[in-house]
Structure formats: C-alpha cells, structure tokens
C-alpha cells in the first residue's frame, strides 16, 4: 500500500465516521441511538423513519432524555410505567441482553400523512464495544399492526368456527375399514354421549348400539352400500343416548381410497333442534289448519243458527198474526154482547164478560208486543219520526191510563215542565215505551200507592221520570230488567203476570230514539224509571218495511 492509498483509506475512514450517523439516519426502521452511560439515556441520533412515523422531528428528540421524547410524552406512559421501562433499560444495559416490550397501540403518521393507531413493538438493544462494555443502546420500534390484526382475525375466525361447529353440532369422524374402528372428535363424542370429550376411538358396532333399533338396519345397510359402491353416504337417524334421551343425527361421508386401504370419513350433524323446530312449525301449521276448519265450521254453524233464528222470528211473527184472528173474534163476540148488539144482559153478566173482554185485550196487547219485539230483533222496526211535544204525550198517556191507576187504588201526579218539550219521535212507539213503564209502575205497586210522572228539560236533553212507591227491584235483578223474557220475582210478580217483553221493548224503542232509560230502586220503597232523550234530534230509521 503506497502513501497515496493510505491517505485515501484514512480519508475514507474519516468520512466513514460521518457516514455511520448518516447510515443510522437512513435505517428504514424507526430507531434511536442512546448514550448508555447517561442515566437519562440521552438520545444521540434518530432514524428518519422514526421521525416521520412518530411525528417527532429530530430537533425535538436528539439531545434529550429518552423518556421525555414522543411517544413517552403521551398519557399512556404513566410515571409508574416509565419507571418500569427505565428499569428494563437499565437491566438490558447491565446484562447486555435485549429486552422486548409488549406491542402497544400508539398514534402514528402513515406514509400518506394520515394519522392512525398502530401496534408498535419496541426492543431495547444494548450495543457492546470490542471490550464488551455497553456504551450505546438502540431503541428499535417495529410496526407489528399487521401481525396483531392477523392474529386477532385468526382468533376471531377460530372462535367463530368453534362457535359455528358447536351451534351446528357438527362432529367429524373417520372409519377405518380395516380395523373396523371409528375415530371421532369431541363433538362427535358429545353427540353420542361418550365419556370422553376429546377424540376417541370406538368400534362401529359399539356406535351402532346407540342407533335407534328402528333405524339401525337402514344405517348399517347404507354404510355397507356406500363402501361397496364408493358412493356418498347420507342417513338421518335417531340415537338413544345412555341417559335415555333421543336425538336426531344426520351423518354424511364418503369412502376414499388411500395408500393404506379404504378410509371412510365424514361429518355428523345434530338435527334434533331443527327437527323440533320443524315439528313445531308443522304443529303450528296443523293448528292453523284446524283453526281454519273450526272457523269454517263455526261460520257454517253460525249461518245455520242465523237461519234457525230467522225462521224462529218468522214463526213468531206468523204465530202471532195467527193468534190475532181468534183473539179478534173473541173481541167481536164479547163486544157484541157488552155493547148491546144482541140484546140486554144483567150487570153481573156484564161484569163477568167485562173481565173476559179485558183478559182478551191483554192477550192482544201481548201479541202486539211480541210482534214489535220480533221486529226489533230482526231490525225491521221502522220509525215514523215527527216533532212532538213530549209534555202533551205524557198528559195524553196519563189520561188514557187514569182508569187503570184508579182501578188499582193509586194516585197519579203529573209534575211537568210548563213549557213544550219538543222531541223527534215516533209517537206510537214512544207512547208504547212510556205506557209499558207506567203499566209496570201500576201493577208492581201495592194498592194505595203514589205514581208521579215528571218531565224536565235540561239543555239539549229532557228526562221523563216515572216514579212509584212500589215493591222495588233488588240490585241483583237490575241487570235482568231489560232482558227479553226475563221475569223478576217480587211480592206482586205472580199477580202482575207480565210477558217479559214490555221493558225490553221500552228500552229498545228509547234506544232507537237516541235515548236511554236509567233505573233507581229500593226494595219496599219504590222505583224511578228515568227516560232521557235528546230534545229535537233526527232519530235513526231502520232499514225495514213494516210499521205498526
């Protein structure tokens, strides 16, 4: 080597000391060079990669203590944690052995300048000089995000797979034809309620023991056929487990020729829940079918009942009309005698015939009420509404029934508002309703009673009350009061001999007038029937064709 060459080498060497720093700067990994002898571990140099990734420029790092430069300035690095790290660094320098920290999620700046969180793993590397002393240390950081994510993903996939296998209750098996043994995994063992929860080996015969006797021959034949023909094996069958429970399994497999003979492997799935679900769905469908059928039958029955009801109504109407004729004839013939068309009679004869005539009249009234009730029931009661003065109607009814009131030894008091009370009503039907209530007041009041008719107008409605001092109605009987054909027992019920229609009809008629009947009663004291009606209002006209 000549002097020129030597000079050149020296120059190179001189140059190379500068290059070491430059080389360090250019290291593609984020790293720091530290003064290991300095208790603060002052940073001597930083790689450009670290500058950019941790977003910490050289001037903020070089010449500063290690634990005062980013990322040690972030919240994550508590005093205790830094103390811990300092200890690890000291240990690494003292022993000369590298120390690797756990990966930590830290904010970093990507190549495109976008900030993100990356998993960084830092290693403290003590650097020995030729004498073995540690004068410098490296802090190397790796972005291990990809590995961490991959591991996490793998873990997720694994847990999902495991969950899927568990949920689907899929077990796997291998049947070694040569030895006649079946190797199953944990799921497979669980399905057969075998004692081991991990993979184990059993003879095929032993497993076949747990197959339901009704399915066993079929499964055995299917295995045999599959082995002989090399075809796909698929069977759904029941197994009876050691605890006596029954489960449905679906086994599927295929024989594959191997170097060391035929191997038959496959999976088995527990279908019990699905079958239960299917059974439930089937049950629900069956129930639905039954419900529909029941609904059809009910509808049919309903139509039959309606037809029966219609024919009953028609029968009632026809029978009632037919009953009118003989009652009319009785009325004519008794009337002829009473009214002197066939000569004179004694007063005693007149009295007796008068009773027969009254009884016949009552019969005709009952027939009329039954006919009206039948019309109400079939919606054929037609109203002929007109504006009427309810006050005049009440007076007229009181006049007409005066003889009945007196005949029973009662007194009738009218307490009517002095002004006209105009209501929209079918006068004949409304009269019938009021008369029915007044008739009851007369017959259910012991002789010598007081009956009061009051009429009050209040705003847009009016109340006509029929108040008696009669036998009264028990609370328990109030609900039966307006029910058709219901009879209420009281001291006068036998004598009164009602038809069970009068109040029903009264309530229906008042209802069709947009009104309501309220009852207050005390046993032994008397009753008040209050008919409330709107003052001047159009009443509903039912779609019918008949009218009395």
């Amino acid at each position: 080597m000549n002097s020129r060459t030597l000079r050149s080498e020296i120059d190179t060497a001189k140059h190379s000391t500068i290059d070491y720093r430059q080389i360090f700067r250019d290291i593609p990994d984020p790293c720091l060079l530290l003064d290991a002898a300095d208790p603060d571990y002052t940073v001597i140099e930083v790689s450009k990669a670290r500058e950019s990734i941790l977003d910490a420029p050289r001037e903020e790092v070089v010449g500063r203590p290690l634990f005062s430069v980013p990322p040690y300035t972030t919240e994550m690095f508590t005093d205790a944690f830094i103390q811990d790290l300092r200890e690890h660094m000291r240990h690494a320098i003292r022993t000369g052995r590298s120390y690797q920290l756990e990966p930590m999620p830290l904010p970093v700046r990507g190549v495109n300048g976008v900030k993100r969180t990356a998993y960084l793993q830092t290693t403290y590397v003590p650097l020995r000089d030729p004498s073995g002393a540690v004068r410098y240390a490296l802090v190397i950081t790796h972005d291990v995000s990809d590995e961490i994510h991959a591991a996490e993903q793998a873990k997720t996939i694994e847990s999902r797979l495991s969950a899927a296998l568990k949920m689907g209750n899929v077990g796997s098996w291998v049947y070694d034809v040569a030895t006649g043994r079946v190797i199953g995994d944990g799921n497979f063992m669980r399905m057969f309620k075998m004692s081991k929860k991990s993979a184990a080996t059993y003879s095929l015969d032993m497993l076949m023991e747990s197959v339901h006797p009704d399915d066993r021959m079929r499964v055995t034949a299917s295995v045999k056929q599959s082995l002989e023909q090399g075809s796909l094996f698929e069977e759904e069958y029941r197994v009876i487990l050691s605890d006596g429970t029954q489960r449905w399994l679906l086994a599927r497999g295929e024989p594959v020729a191997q170097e060391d003979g035929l191997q038959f492997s496959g999976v088995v799935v527990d279908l019990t829940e699905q079958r239960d679900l299917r059974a439930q769905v089937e049950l629900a469908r069956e129930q639905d079918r039954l419900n529909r059928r029941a609904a059809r039958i009910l509808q049919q029955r309903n139509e039959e009942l309606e037809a029966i009801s219609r024919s009953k109504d028609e029968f009632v109407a026809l029978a009632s009309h037919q009953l009118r004729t003989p009652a009319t004839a009785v009325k004519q013939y008794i009337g002829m005698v009473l009214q002197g068309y066939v000569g004179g009679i004694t007063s005693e004869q007149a009295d007796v015939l008068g009773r027969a005539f009254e009884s016949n009249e009552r019969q005709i009234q009952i027939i009329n009420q039954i006919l009206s009730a039948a019309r109400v029931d079939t919606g054929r009661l037609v109203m002929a509404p007109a504006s009427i003065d309810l006050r005049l109607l009440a007076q007229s009814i009181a006049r007409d029934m005066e003889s009945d009131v007196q005949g029973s030894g009662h007194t009738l008091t009218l307490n009517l508002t002095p002004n006209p009370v105009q209501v929209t009503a079918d006068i004949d039907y409304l009269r019938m309703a009021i008369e029915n209530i007044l008739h009851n007041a007369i017959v259910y009041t012991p002789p010598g009673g007081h009956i009061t008719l009051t009429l009050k107008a209040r705003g847009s409605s009016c109340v006509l009350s029929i108040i008696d001092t009669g036998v009264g109605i028990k609370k328990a009987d109030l609900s039966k009061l307006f029910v058709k054909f219901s009879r209420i027992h009281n001291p006068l019920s036998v004598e009164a001999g009602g038809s069970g229609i009068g109040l029903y009809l009264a309530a229906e008629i008042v209802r069709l007038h947009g009104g309501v009947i309220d009852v207050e009663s005390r046993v032994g004291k008397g009753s008040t029937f209050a008919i409330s009606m709107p003052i001047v209002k159009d009443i509903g006209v039912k779609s019918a064709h008949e009218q009395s």
Partner: protein
Amino acid sequence: MVNMSDKNLQVLIVEDEQLLNEAYARVLTAANIALLRAYNGKEALELLKENKPDIILLDLRMPVMDGIEFLKRLNPKENCPETKIIVFSNYDDQREIDEAFSLGAMHYMLKAWATPDELVKLIREVDNASQPVS
C-alpha cells in the same frame, strides 16, 4: 151500540174467517147496514158484477184470491170511484198496506183494534168522509 142514520148504506164484507165474517155481519145488520158477504176476492168480484156497495170492508190475506189481487182486478179508481174501500186486516205489513192504497184503498184498520162499536163508527166516518180516515 152505535145507531146508524136512516140512509140505506150497503157494505160488502170480504173476509175468509167464518167467525169474523159472521160477527161483522151480525154487528152491521144490528146497526141497520145492508150487507153483501164474500169469503175471498173472487167471490167479491162476482158480487160486484151485480152490486155497487158504498163501502168494501176488505181483508188482505185470503185463500183463492187475496185482497191485493182483488184490488188489481177491480181497479176501483176506474171502475167504481164512488166505492170506499177499508183495508181491515190483522197484518200490519206496511208494504202490503201501501200497495193496497196505491190500488185504490183509502182506509186501513187493524182488525184486532176494533170493537163492534169502533167498527160501526169507522164505517160511518168513512161513509161521511171524502178524505181517508185513520
């Protein structure tokens, strides 16, 4: 008993019920009313060929020929406008009554309502009235 005026009033009873037909005949005869009696519409039409009663007391539901058919055949508005027709039925079917009125009947009474006196009174009122009596 309601006495009639001296006027020679003639009533045609059209009633299929023997008992009622006879009852009305007795009552009206006792009240000095001349009678014609038929048991259905067909018999009534026969009688009307020779007679012109003042009033026809007409039942509606009758065998052989009912009251409505009788009115259709008779056409009283054209053929006997002077004759007053009282529908006297125990049926109170409004459609039936309306149809009878459209065919020339002018009055209606439910048979079950009428005592002998009321029947005679009705006939007298109808005879005197030029308008329908209700």
